[in-house]
Structures are given as C-alpha cells and as structure tokens.
C-alpha cells in the first residue's frame, strides 16, 4: 500500500516537468498555430545550460542551484525569442506543415550544437542543495527534491492562470488564440504578441529541462523523447488548453509510474494506447475545442492536374535517363540510386495520403518499417524467397495501416497527425522491446536479395520496376474515381458528406493504400541494406518522409519525386563532407522553407504560371 502511494508521488513528480514542457507547447500552438517540433530542443538546452550554470554558480549553495536553474530557463527563453524573430516571423504565412518542417530544422541544428559544446557523454548534475535527503512516508523514503517538483507543477499552473486572466497581455493572448486577425484589426501588434508567447513557451520548456537536472542524467537524445511525450500530453489535454495539459501530464505521469509495475516493457505502448482511446472518445482532447476555420491561413489550393504534354515528355526523358544509369554509374552510385528510388516511393505514398487524402501523417515510418520487418521476418523464420518476402512485407504494412487507419480517419488535422505518430511509436516500441522475435536493438541481419537480384545493377532495375510501378499506380489511383472522391472529402468534408459519400470509409481505404505502398518501399529497403533496425520505424524516418514531401510541395504530383531525390542526395553528399551533417541539413531545410514556402515544384510552377509560358508543368 505505502509502496503504491510512493509510486503515485513519483508519478506526480514527473508530471510536473512534463506539464512545464507541454504547457509551453500548447500556448505557442494556441496563438501562433505553429506545432513547434523544437520544443524538445528547448527542454534539452534547458537541462544542459542548467548543468553548466549550476556548476559555475553553485559552490553548493541553495541560491547557486536555483539561480542556475532560473538563469538556464531565461537563457532558453532568449534563444526562443531569437528563433521567433529571426526565423518564424518569416514563415507565419506559410502552410502549417512547412512551419513544422522549419522547426524540425532547428531540432537538427540544436542536436549538433549540443554535441559540439557538451560532448556525447551523459552528464550527471548535482543534487539540489538542502534537498538531498529523503522523507519517510509510511516507512518508505521519498526524495525531498521530488516534493518540490510535485508542488512546482500546480504553482506554475496557478501563475499561468493569473497571467492569462488577470493581465491585459493574457487577455490579448486568449483573444488571439481564438481569432488573431481580429486582434490585429483592433490595433494590436501581432509580432510582439507572438514573440512574447514564444519566449514564455521556451522559458517553460527550459525550466522543465533545468529542474530535471538532479533527477536524471542529461543526454543528447532527450529532445525527441520529451517532444513525443509533450505532443501526446498536449493532444490528450486539448490543443491550446493549459489546464488540459496539466490534467494530461498527471495522467501520463501516473501511467508511467504504475505502468512500469504492470508492463515494465511496454510503458510506451500503454501511453499511446491511452491516447488513442481518449482521442477516439474525445477527438479534441479532454478540454480542447473543435478546430474551427483558422483565420488568416494560406489561400486556396491549386487543383492537381494530370500530366501535360510537357510533363509527359519530361517523364519519358527521366525514365530513359534512369534506364541508362547503370551504363555510366558505378556500384556505389547504383546503390544510392536504388535508395533514392525507394525513398521516392515512400514519399509518394505519404504524398498520396497528404495531398490527395488530406490526412497528414507524422508516423508514416510505421508502414515503411513494418514493411521492412514483414519482409525480413518472413525470410528469417520461414526462409521464403525474396519475391515472397516482397509480398509479405507490404501485406504486413497494409494490414497495420488498415488497423491503425480505422482509428485515425475519425480525426482530422493536427489530432490525426498526432494519432498517426502515436501508432508509429507503438509499432516502434513493440519492435524495439520484443527482442526475442525482432532482434530488438540489434535488428535482423543477413536479409540478402536472391542471387538473380544480388548485383547492384539487377537490384537497381528491380527497384526501378517496383518503385516506378508503385508511383504510376499511385498516380492512377489519384485520377481514378476513387481518387476524385478522396479529394472531394479533403476539400469539403461537409459537402462530400451531404452528397452521400461515406467519408470515413474512403479515407480509411486511402490510408490503407498509402500504408501498403510504403510497405513496398520498406520491403525493398530491407533487401537493399541486408538488414533491418528499429530506426526504420523511428520518428526520424517519419520526419524524413515529411521533409521529402514538403520540400517537393504537397499540391503537386511531381513534388515527392523531386523532394525525395533532393533530400536523399543532399543527405548522402553532406554526410560525406562533414560530421556536422545535421546542422547542414537543418540549415538547408530552413533556407528552403523560407525561400520556397510552396515547395520546390510549387515554386517552379508558380514561376512558370506567372511568366505565362506553360499551363501546368506537373
């Protein structure tokens, strides 16, 4: 009994830190509509800065410790303000997803920065002076410091409430969360409002990281860990709701504390299962409101058109060039080319879901990765030939998409995206933790292609056939009646509903198809690499896919092809020049987003349209 109570307190203590991060994320989203991927980076920076500052200031005094913690949070706030003023301010008019992409660029840059300044080793912070001891509760001891954390959460909640309800600034923020354009039309300078909100959000994240110092080692993968959890909390609580974030943080904190007793291996799965259930019951989170029409967003989308003669000629030329590639390229070049082809199909499948289906996925890696594992596992356990595995992989991915999709298509917008992320993380957790079956962290190795496809040239042609075929099939579906219906659902859910289209069912099929095609790409990838690792299902892979689609442009069919090629080639070439490939990639992503808010292909189309030379090139 007393043990359970201690566990309960543990849950509350970790909830506090989660709440600090999630509330900042939620406030920022409420006002600016930016899903700030870099929020986890702020948290991590807070922890690292606190590590340094506490050492510099402390000498073991109480003032030194807390002074260091607060200074660290303030330093992160300054970083946040600079980020808003230098970067985000330029892209408020860009589509939401590109903003997300730009903040992901920041994640990459901060990762390299942290590695450069603090090195790759985990850092252990000092315990808090005056709070080093433990308190005796029903015969169990509980750290004093954790008590302070338990109190910190509600205190911050109260302070935020006062800030939002008792100051003019807070009133403006609440008004802007509802209709920021109208706030401007009443004479309020929005840029100032946005900067201050972002600064506050960054401060909270920095503080959340800094107070973790005595509890856990500071390391350079904290950012993506916490951002996933913070996303989950914000979504469960309801986007933009601070109280909701608090409730959700307590739920998740407790779930982790008790889940570890029941399913020590599967706490992550438990978290996401709870989220999935809550979202199906309450699609806008516990205290969220249905997403209205967001005022002042980007303009109408240009419809996707079939290939024009110019586009057709370009496609034929590209195909000829691809067929001829083995004559001029060495083995290394061919394997890079195969990889680019695989990623192109992967991107095209996500593009189908996003562009045609209007469903944004943050977790498309699930289907790519399950395709890989599906293929690898059938080879490993049933010894089937490569071709059979290339059928099994996509089937596994398709079935997973069928199951996950059933839940996801009931939601829309950011909530849908978060749920896809949740399912991807469940898949990741299962693969990672079920090591007796999947090899866990060590992955599965020795998944080589059949002898006839073993040479780089043969495998390249196989990739070209399957990926090219896949892309053509995706296009065909886009222009088939099913594709038109799907786009009708995307453009006007209400109208499609009223003319008797079963919205959820069409979106569900679309979701499943997208998963299936990603699975083809994943299966090929397993044979290309000769191995599979949990990485293929990780957030990083999902983001890769998003980056490729967004780089190319969502509203053009050529987009994913151009985007995937650009991204993969950049990736390969940058990593061969510098260790700091993340920084380089991050900078490139940000520059591209700022320069081409419509994606590369969208940009070219706009140029052509404006100069009036071509009706439609893609």
């Amino acid at each position: 009994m007393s043990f359970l109570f201690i566990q309960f307190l543990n849950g509350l203590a970790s909830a506090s830190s989660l709440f600090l991060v999630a509330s900042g994320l939620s406030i920022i989203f409420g006002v600016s509509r930016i899903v700030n991927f870099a929020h986890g980076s702020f948290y991590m920076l807070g922890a690292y800065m606190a590590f340094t500052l506490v050492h510099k200031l402390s000498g073991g005094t109480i003032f030194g410790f807390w002074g260091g913690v607060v200074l660290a949070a303030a330093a992160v706030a300054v970083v946040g303000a600079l980020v808003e003023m230098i970067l985000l301010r330029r892209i408020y008019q860009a589509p939401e997803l590109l903003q997300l992409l730009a903040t992901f660029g920041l994640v990459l840059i901060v990762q390299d920065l942290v590695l450069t300044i603090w090195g790759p080793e985990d850092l252990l912070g000092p315990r808090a002076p005056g709070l080093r001891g433990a308190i005796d509760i029903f015969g169990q001891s509980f750290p004093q410091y954790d008590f302070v954390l338990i109190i910190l959460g509600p205190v911050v909640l109260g302070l935020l409430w006062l800030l939002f309800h008792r100051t003019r600034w807070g009133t403006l923020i609440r008004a802007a969360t509802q209709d920021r354009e109208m706030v401007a039309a009443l004479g309020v300078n929005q840029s100032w409002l946005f900067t201050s909100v972002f600064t506050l959000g960054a401060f909270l994240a920095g503080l959340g990281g800094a107070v973790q110092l005595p509890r856990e080692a500071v390391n350079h993968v904290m950012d993506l860990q916490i951002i996933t959890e913070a996303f989950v909390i914000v979504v469960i609580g309801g986007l933009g709701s601070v109280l909701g974030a608090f409730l959700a943080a307590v739920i998740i904190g407790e779930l982790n504390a008790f889940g570890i007793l029941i399913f020590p291996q599967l706490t992550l799965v438990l978290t996401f299962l709870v989220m999935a259930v809550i979202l199906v019951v309450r699609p806008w989170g516990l205290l969220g409101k249905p997403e209205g029409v967001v005022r002042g967003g980007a303009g109408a989308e240009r419809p996707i058109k079939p290939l024009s003669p110019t586009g057709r000629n370009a496609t034929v030329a590209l195909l000829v060039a691809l067929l001829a590639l083995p004559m001029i390229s060495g083995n290394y070049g061919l394997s890079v080319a195969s990889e680019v082809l695989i990623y192109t199909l992967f991107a095209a499948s996500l593009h189908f879901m996003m562009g045609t289906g209007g469903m944004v996925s943050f977790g498309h890696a699930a289907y790519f990765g399950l395709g890989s594992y599906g293929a690898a596992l059938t080879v490993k356990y049933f010894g089937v030939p490569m071709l059979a595995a290339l059928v099994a992989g996509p089937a596994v991915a398709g079935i997973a998409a069928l199951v996950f999709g059933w839940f996801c298509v009931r939601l829309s917008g950011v909530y849908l995206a978060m749920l896809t992320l949740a399912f991807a993380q469940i898949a990741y957790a299962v693969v990672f933790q079920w090591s007796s079956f999947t090899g866990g962290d060590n992955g599965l190795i020795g998944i080589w292609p059949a002898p006839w496809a073993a040479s780089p040239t043969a495998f390249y042609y196989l990739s070209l056939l399957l990926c090219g075929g896949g892309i053509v099939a995706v296009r065909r579906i886009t222009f088939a009646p099913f594709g038109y219906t799907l786009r009708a659902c995307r453009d006007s859910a209400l109208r499609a509903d009223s003319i008797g289209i079963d919205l959820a069912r069409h979106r569900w099929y679309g979701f499943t198809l997208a998963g299936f095609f990603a699975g083809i790409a994943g299966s090929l990838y397993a044979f290309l690499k000769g191995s599979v690792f949990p990485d293929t299902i990780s957030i990083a892979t999902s983001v890769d896919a998003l980056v490729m689609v967004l780089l190319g442009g969502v509203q053009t069919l050529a987009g994913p092809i151009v985007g995937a090629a650009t991204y993969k080639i950049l990736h390969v070439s940058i990593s061969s020049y510098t260790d700091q490939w993340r920084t380089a990639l991050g900078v490139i992503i940000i520059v591209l987003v700022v320069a081409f808010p419509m994606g590369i292909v969208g940009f070219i189309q706009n140029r052509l349209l404006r100069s009036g030379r071509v009706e439609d090139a893609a």
Partner: protein
Amino acid sequence: MKLEAHNLNAFYGRAQILFDVGLKADTGEVVALIGRNGAGKSTTFKSLVGLVTARTGQLVFNGTDISGLPVHDIVRLGLGYVPEDRRIFTDLTVEENLDVGTQPARAGAPSWTKERLFELFPNLAGMRNRGAGRMSGGEQQMLTIARSLMGNPSLIMLDEPSEGLAPKIVEDMANAILTMKDQGLAVLISEQNLHFAKMISDRAYIIEKGRICFDGTMAELSNNDEVRNTYLAV
C-alpha cells in the same frame, strides 16, 4: 477630409474584385456604401483597413498614406473597423472583449470609456461579466461596435450593422450611430438595405460588381428612381 481613397483596386488571388473605387468620408458625417450581395462592400472595407493586402491605389487617412501599412498600424491611426460577421471573442467575457479593443486616447477623436459605452448600448451594461459566447446576435453586434470604439477611433467603418437585427434593435442601432456622429466621428457604413441607410446617412455611394456607380447625397439618391431601380431593385 478624414479618409480618401482613389483608384482602389483589390484582388483575391488572381481575381480582381475592386476596380478604381474612390470614396471619401469626413468628420461629422455618416456615409453609406450601398450594394447587393457580392458587390464588393466588405472587400472595400477590408482593403481600407489593410486586411486585404493585395491592393493598389491611393489611400489617405488623416493626411497619412496608409496603403503600405499593416493592419494594426492603420487601426492605431484611428481607423476603426467592425466586421460584418462580428468576430466576437466568445471565450472572453464582455468586459474582456472591450479590453482587447482598448487603445490610448487620441487627440481629435472622441474618447470612450466602458461606462460611456454602456450608456450608448444599455443592453450591454447588465452583462459585463457574461461570456460573450452566450449573447444574442443583436447584443454581439453592439459588443463588436463597442469593442472598436474602445480604440478611440476618429473614423469607424461598420460593415452591415443592421444585418439580422430585430426592428426594435435596428432603431437602437440607428440612434447609436447618430450619437457617434454627433460625438465627432466620421462613420462609414455598408448596407444592402436602403431603408436603414436612409435613416442615418448624409451621403451615399452605390457599388456594383466592384465599381462605384453612384456618388451623391442621400436626398439625391432618394429622388433618383432610375439609379435605385437599376442597382438596388430587389
């Protein structure tokens, strides 16, 4: 002249909506912009206040060229804007809605306090702390006007202020607008409803398909059957 627009052209994407619109409004007068559904009334107002940025032409407010300024700067010069769909902050209370609109007092413009606004719109006085989401349409219309007045504008643009109001409330609204005029505000309203415009306006413009096709006093418009029948026939 308080506000002067010349050769105002406005665009949504590649579609041109306004064509060489010209209009003026001065202190102490109510000017009506009259036109049918889709004629371009709201677009004209939005272009003036800077919500539609794809626009060309000379826009001079209070002697300042406002054509390149962002919305909040234009509003801070004293140009108040009340949208036709009201856009009340329903998550806030009535009083908080007024707080959002509050700007410092301005020389050359009547200055308002919450108390004075509750006198102007007595209906609001009893619901200071009520959530603005729980108000009738007419109350919301009054709140949205009061909210803009809190910015102490020297000119206020009201987009279809009588739309959807009960006859009794329409009368209150007309009186409130006349009070604003007497306080020394320039008032620019848009209307489809000639009857309401007649009650309060000194001058009128008729807009049709994005072009101004009549410009004169309200009396001239009332006497000109041809114009009325061509542009305003129901």
